[in-house]
Each structure stands twice: as C-alpha cells, then as structure tokens.
C-alpha cells in the first residue's frame, strides 16, 4: 500500500514537472485553468496586472494595493469602463521574492497579454520587475515603492521613462520630517534607530541626516538593528543617555511599535517620528507609549470628503485591516493609469502595440495633472518620474492615528 502510494505520488510530481517544464507548451496551457486560450490583448477588455506580496510578512501593503486598485477599477467598470471596454485585472502574488516577482510579471505579459501593470509593492521587487518592464517599455505604476532607484539609475543617469509612482520617494520623506522637526517642533538634537537590512529604512535615514545637517539639527546617536530583531533595549539605552529632542525611526510599523514600547521602558521620553512605513503603528504599541508619535503619510484617514467616500466603499468590500495609505495611493494609481489608457484608446491605437504603450506612458506623464485623486489634487511628475505632492502629517493621539495638517 505504501509502495503504491509513493509510486502514485512520484507519478503525480513527475507529471507536474513535465507540465511545468514547458516541453510541450500546448499541454502546459491545458493543465492550467486560469490563463485564457487567447493571449492577445485586443478585444472587448483591457487587461492590466496587479502584482505584489499578497502573503507573508508585508501582506498588509500588498493586499492594500490590490484592493485599492481593484476598487477603483470595479467602480470604473460599473460606470461603463473605458470607452465601453471593461478593464480586466489579473492579480498575482510574488511572496516578496525577486524571482517570483519576475515570473509573475512574465506570466502576466506572455500568458495574459496585459497592457499595463500596477505594482510591484516592495522596493526590491519593483526594481526587479522594473528591469524587465523597461526592456519592453511596459507602462508600470507603483503605489508603494519609494526608493529613488525604482525610476532612476544614478550610475548611468538613466530615467526609466515607463515607470511611475503615486507615493513619495524615500529622500522626500526624510527631508519632510527633518524640516518638520526643525520648524514645527523646534528640535535641536535627534537620534535615529533604523533597520540596517532594509533599503527603505536606510534611504529615509540618509535623507533625514542630510537635511538635519543643513538645518543645524545635531544627530546625537545613530543606531542600527538587524531584520527580525525584537529586542531593541541596548540601542535605546544608548539613545536614552543622549536625551535627544526627537527620535527618528524610519522602519515598518511592527518594529516601530516594539521600539516605542521598549523606549518608554528604558526612559526615552522624546517625540518619535517616522515615515510612511509607520502607518499602522498604533496597533503595535499601547496608547500611552505611542502618544504624540508623528509620521508623514501620503494619506490621512477621514481628512477630506473624497477620502471618506473612498473609505466607505473600501470597508464595504474589503476588511478594514488592509485599509492603509497604499490602498489609497493604489486607488490613485489605478485612476491615473485608467485615465492614460483612455487617452490611448481614444487615439484609436491597438492594445499591445508599441505605439499604444508609448501613448499610455506619455499620458500618465502629461495628462494626470487635472485628475481629482484622493491623496492629491492631480499628479505631476518631475524629471525622474517622481510625483510632486504634499505630505499629510499624522499624529498618534490616545491610540488613534489622527490627521494634523498637510505640510
């Protein structure tokens, strides 16, 4: 019996190999239920892909992006789509892995025949996918990848003209927060605690330090920690002994929550500041510990009527847990992209052709200024394809993250 089972299993697995190897592409198509028989993009629908990390540690970002963009596209489809054509979404999970991200993108292009991409979510994945997308000039708009290198290669001075984003870049956030600390909080000294294994943390931190030195804020302590650390007390004790005015922690929300909690235990009473990765921190630290913590965000819950309408529609369809800043920027990204697709459609171009892709790219760059988006009144893009927009300053007050002002 066991022997029979093991042989059966071996056969099943081997069948898997041959189907996947693509020895026979036609059988590869039939074993897989999702990809439709035709891979051409023409027809009654316009296909776009949403790729991101929908599972794992950073799923909150990936799902927010997926839901936010899907929400807009569903609304658009309900109101007639683009010139009568429905927009169809293919959504793939990349498990926050570069190789998986590239596989998912290639699948979307080759099997599904997409005309544009919303994604990727994490910076490293987006750079990996961006490299592939640049080769074929595929219009791509990310709602969450904030590193400068996503749209611009400093080594060769190349701008990736096909890649856009609706979130800020890392240096922009570091600059904003340093300016805010100096101007609004009157800070003279600052300490930093950041994740050394995280390019997002390092990018924001570097810009913060550069702006601080220009503004005359003294960095009294710069502490790093490794990815996965949960005990930050040795670093925080050092910071406590320097007694800084503000502590800047440009990390993701889970770590920031632990850091704030432990900092209060070792006697750090400074104001904590962070960047948009801190969004959601109130779920990971007690109200008393996190009180007064500030971060900048591309999105403030309940700040305007447009935002309120978006939130109502979002929570009606999806869980409120994934309603974060990236859900809002993804909604904007979908709006910017669909507007550009409409321009290309109206020009009478055929989906999938080089002219079509170029028309979409041009339209994203030039025709997004008038859109009534929810996190910004229109998007304009600078020479490096980075959006020019305001930041919302957010503050934790009695355990809830509240909007302070647009700065």
């Amino acid at each position, binding site marked *: 019996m066991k022997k029979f089972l093991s042989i059966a299993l071996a056969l099943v697995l081997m069948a898997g190999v041959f189907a996947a190897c693509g020895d026979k592409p036609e059988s590869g198509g039939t074993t897989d239920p999702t990809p439709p028989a035709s891979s051409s993009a023409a027809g009654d629908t316009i296909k776009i892909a949403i790729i991101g990390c929908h599972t794992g540690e950073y799923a909150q970002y990936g799902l927010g992006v997926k839901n936010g963009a899907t929400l807009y596209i569903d609304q658009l489809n309900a109101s007639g789509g683009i010139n009568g054509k429905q927009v169809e979404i293919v959504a793939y999970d990349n498990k926050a892995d570069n*190789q998986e991200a*590239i596989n998912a993108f290639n*699948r979307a292009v080759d099997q599904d025949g997409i005309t544009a991409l919303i994604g990727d979510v994490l910076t490293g994945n987006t750079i990996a996918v961006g490299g592939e997308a640049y080769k074929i000039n595929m219009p791509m708009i990310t709602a969450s990848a904030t590193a400068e290198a996503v749209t611009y290669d400093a080594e060769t001075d190349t701008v990736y003209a096909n890649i856009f984003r609706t979130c800020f870049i890392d240096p922009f956030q570091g600059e904003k927060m340093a300016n805010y600390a100096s101007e609004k909080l009157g800070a003279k000294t600052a300490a930093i605690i950041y994740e050394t294994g995280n390019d997002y943390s390092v990018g924001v931190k570097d810009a913060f330090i550069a702006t601080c030195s220009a503004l005359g804020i003294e960095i009294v302590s710069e502490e790093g920690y490794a990815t996965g650390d949960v005990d930050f007390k040795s670093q925080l004790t050092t910071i406590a002994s320097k007694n800084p005015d503000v502590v800047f922690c440009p990390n993701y929300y889970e770590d920031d929550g632990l850091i704030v909690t432990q900092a209060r235990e070792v006697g750090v009473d400074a104001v904590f500041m962070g960047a948009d990765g801190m969004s959601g921190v109130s779920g990971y630290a007690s109200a008393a510990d996190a009180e007064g913590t500030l971060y900048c965000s591309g999105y403030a819950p309940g700040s305007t009527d447009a935002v309120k309408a978006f939130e109502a529609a979002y929570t009606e369809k999806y869980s409120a847990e994934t309603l974060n800043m990236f859900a809002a920027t993804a909604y904007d990204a979908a709006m910017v992209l669909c507007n550009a697709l409409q321009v290309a459609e109206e020009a009478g171009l055929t989906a999938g052709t080089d002219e079509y892709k170029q028309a979409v790219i041009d339209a994203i760059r030039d025709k997004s200024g008038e859109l009534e988006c929810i996190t910004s009144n229109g998007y304009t893009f600078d020479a490096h394809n980075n959006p020019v927009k305001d930041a919302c300053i957010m503050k934790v007050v009695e355990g809830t993250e509240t909007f302070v002002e647009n700065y």
Partner: protein
Amino acid sequence: MKRNQMLIPMPLRYLINAVLFAAFLWIMNSLITGGAISRYHSGIISSIGISIILAVSLNMATGYLGQLPLGHAGFMALGAYTSALIMKSAAAAKGLESALGASYAAYFFPAALVAGGLAAALFALLIGMPALRLRGDYLAILTLGFGEIIRVVLLNIDNVLGFKLTNGAAGLQKIPTTTTFLFTFIFVGITCFVIHTMMKSRHGRAILSIRENEIAAESCGISTTYYKTLGFVVSAFFAGIAGGLYAGNVGILNPSSFGFMKSIEILVMVVLGGMGSMLGSVLSASVLTALPELLRSFAENRMVVYSLVLVIVMIFKPTGLMGTYDFSLNGLLDKLILKLKGGNARFQKGGPDE
C-alpha cells in the same frame, strides 16, 4: 555479480548520455529561440536548472558524504555576488563591447561563473578544514553560522569599506541578465557529470564509505578529513556557480534572498528527492521550483498545497521519493539487451563470461 555486468562498453555509455543530453539542449534551445516556448516558461526552466544545480550539489555533501551543511545559500550568495560584480565591471568596460561585439557577455559569463564557484569553494575550504576534522553536528552549526555571516557581511560591508561594493540592503542592481537556457543547462550537465563520475571513482567510494561508517573508513586507511573537505568544497563550488546563474537570471541581488530559509529550501529538495539519489534531487528540485508557479492560480492556497505535498511524502516515504536509487539509462539498456537476447538470458545467471 553477473547482474551488474556491463554489456555496453564504457566509453559508449558516456557517449550515449552525452548525445542524448546534447539533443535535449539543442531541441529546447531551438524551441526557445524560435519563440515556441514563451519568455515566462523559459524563465521558469532556467530557475529549475539553477535549483537542480543547487540540489545536486547539496546532495553531494548531504546524501553522499553524510554531513548536514545548513549554509548552502551562503555559498550561493558568494558565487552570486562574485560573478555579478565581474559581469557588472565587464559591462561597464565599454571597450569590451566594441572589441568583442554585442555577444561579449558570452565570453565573460562562464568565466564569471567559475570565479563565483571558486570564491565559494575557497570559503568552503577555509571553514571545512577545521570543522570537518570533528565528527557529528559541528559542521551543521558552523555552516548555519557561516550562511548568516555571509548575509550580514554582504549587508554591511559597504559601511566598512567606505565605497559601494555590494550596495548593502538596496541590493546590487543592474546586473547584466546573461543567464540563458543554454548556459544554465550546460552547467547542469557539467554539475551532474562531474559529481556522478566523481562518485564512481576511488574518491567517491571513499566519500561513500565515510557516510556508511566513519570509524570503519578511517581504520581502512582513508583520510576522512581530506575526503570530507573534498566533498564539501566540490559541493560549495557548484553552489557558487548556481549563485552566478541566479544573479544573471534575476538582475538584482538582495542579501535577504540568501537567508536561512533559502538553505532550508534547498535541503528540502534533497531530502524530498531522497538523500543520496541524484535523480531524486533533480526531480524534486524541478517539481518544487515549478509547483508554486503551477499553483499560481490557487493564489493564497498554494503554500498550503506545497506544504501538504511535503508532509505526505515524508509520512509515506521517509527516505524521500527515490531513496538512494539512481537511474542509469545504460543499466536499463543492458537489461533490455539481455531480454532481447532471448529467454536463455535468464538462465545465464552465473554463466560464462563473454
């Protein structure tokens, strides 16, 4: 024993395999360049090739040598960064492209891969020499630590050096994507060939004897430290080559891609396929690389299916799918010839030599 008698002479046996493999390469390559296999599928096939090299090379240390290295991803990372840095500087040297033409990468890539392999082998030698003098689990702990050290060094070395080498957490970007199907599978062939012939040689027998009983092997006059180090270094060398191919396939390297879980992933391939079976390693590396892609349509549930397959196999076949069985095409042909020779082949058991 008559049963193991070889009816096909030795050089011919290699020739048959070589011709078949070359035919496989040629057919697949013309399918890919001809566009019959899409970029998506050929990308996955390349990933499968890389996984095969990783699993087969780890099988050398785990299955044949009987050690338990837990830092295979560390050696992979060394190879990946070494060859990526070489390819990046080759791409930056503009003169090369004009001198050698647009295909200059084809000249440099194999050299870069071998350099990556050598870098991994060097470090394997350095940590293997002290660790493999000892018996037991020391190598597991040591390689576990080593893999983590490599990852942390790659993350932070820029701060120490004061210039950009690995580009830290942001990752080494814009690596020329030179990995093709042909490159990958030529190296798959080389890996399998070298490890197979090595295991059939005197060195390989010595390595197997260490797995079976280290004390007995030593009492027979086998230098256990030498052979353990040899097996370990060869294993690391091919892991380095696989790393180089990975770098050329993805185009961006983050130290986080080479964490402990990556080492475990490779180990799972070896254990699932059967420790000590090259065929098992090849099969399970192929399946475990392709499976998550096949299950992509199941989205969130695919990791559950993947885990279930592992659990079921381990319950019903704890030695792995193939155990220690290894497939030999020529062995099969031998049997076929015996059968064709007619019923009397059966009665020739213990019969006269030819």
